[in-house]
């Protein structure tokens, strides 16, 4: 059973573009290992945060959209938590029918 999820990650502004890509690729690999597919990776670039996060006033936002089974969320979040350079993250289930989501993928 596949569900459409979206993951927004706030990364440290000290990380370079390459390092960020590596982190995101790592997460993509985990999603695929758990039987899901990554549909979209959207890098918003370094943006100002509304309040200081770990003494930084800015951070890099990366949004990922994927289809994956619900069981994979725990595994993905576990890995996100132990990754260095990730300040904040949020996983949101997107309100779309799973059938339509798989068609697109």
């Amino acid at each position, binding site marked *: 059973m596949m569900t459409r999820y979206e993951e927004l990650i706030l990364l440290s502004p000290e990380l370079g573009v390459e390092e960020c890509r590596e982190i995101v690729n790592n997460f993509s690999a985990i999603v695929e290992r758990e039987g899901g597919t990554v549909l979209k990776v959207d890098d918003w670039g370094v943006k100002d945060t509304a*309040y200081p996060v770990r003494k930084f006033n800015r*951070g890099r936002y990366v949004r990922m959209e994927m289809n994956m089974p619900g069981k994979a969320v725990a595994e993905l979040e576990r890995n996100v938590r132990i990754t260095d350079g990730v300040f904040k993250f*949020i996983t*949101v289930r997107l309100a779309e029918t799973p059938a339509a989501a798989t068609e697109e993928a």
Partner: protein
Amino acid sequence: MSFKKKFAPRRKYCRFCENPEILLDYKHPEVLNDFVTDRGKIIASRITGTCAKHQRALTREVKRARQMALMFYTATHSTDVLKKSRV
């Protein structure tokens, strides 16, 4: 004593019912900022006229936006205020 109304308040309506194109989404804080006070508190639907369904969604998205540092929890913690106080 007459109870004549001095003015007729403009009819409130739910902006999200009126225009379904406006997406309630935590990723778009510029929409949510209209429904929050300068200090960051969510304005009651009684004031803004938002319907119950959309007010629930609005609250949820504001809280998500705060969590991801897209909106501030309180103005005293906001980056803008902190910048000014440092000068």
